[in-house]
């Protein structure tokens, strides 16, 4: 039984992934499948909404690491928004703010993809 799920939403050309639950070595493959689905559909403007993400381990962080370069090479990005403070602390611990665009509000992340609509 997994207590992790990924919800899909879109805002124009931007694909938003709503992460819910706990992301660990057991559930990381579900996030990987979700990002692969975006790639297969040529959706490379991706926002990860972490408002309902309660936990992340290095296995979850590893998924972001595995795809960020590919997505950027295709002209896109993975922006991470609305993280709970305790989850943000884990990203921060590993220096992720240096590598990823981590933003408080989803609306601001959308604005960064679409400056004209911000």
């Amino acid at each position: 039984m997994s207590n992790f799920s990924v919800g899909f939403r879109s805002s124009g050309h931007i694909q938003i992934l709503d992460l819910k639950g706990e992301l660990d070595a057991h559930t990381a493959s579900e996030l990987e499948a979700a990002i692969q689905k975006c790639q297969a559909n040529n959706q490379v403007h991706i926002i990860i909404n972490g408002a309902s993400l309660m936990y992340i381990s290095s296995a979850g962080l590893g998924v972001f690491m595995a795809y960020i370069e590919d997505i950027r090479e295709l002209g896109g990005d993975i922006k991470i928004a609305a993280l709970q403070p305790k989850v943000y602390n884990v990203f921060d611990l590993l220096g992720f703010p240096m590598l990823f665009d981590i933003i408080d509000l989803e609306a601001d992340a959308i604005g960064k993809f679409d400056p004209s609509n911000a």
Partner: protein
Amino acid sequence: MAVNTHTLTIPSSTSFLEEVREFVTSHATQAKFAEGVVEQMKMAVDEACTNVIEHSYEGNADQVIDITITTMPDKLVVVIRDKGLKFDRAAYQEPDLLQYAKSKKTGGFGVHIMRKLMDSVEYRNTGGFNECCMIKFKS
């Protein structure tokens, strides 16, 4: 406050990591560690067990892992014990984030995280078992 010891034995499968995290959270909270510190210990133990499952047992799910938590007035000691392959200290390197992203590597952060979150992380081999012993002090 007395010394309390609790042991959880799980099969070597990632599907039991959630149970491990609940075990750590329950006993660390009972021992009156602050919420943020409980989070840190929970993650460190998750990482240690994930490493055992993926590296020591190489994904073989029919082995077992023992997790023993001892709470004392000033600290929590957790020992993760397995009978798989030894942790290769010589091969371990601190990960470099930018290099990792470029090489598209996904793992290797577990030990780094454990060392950042705990006050002490030690590996030893005794009686045919591998043991990872981690300590967190209260203040």
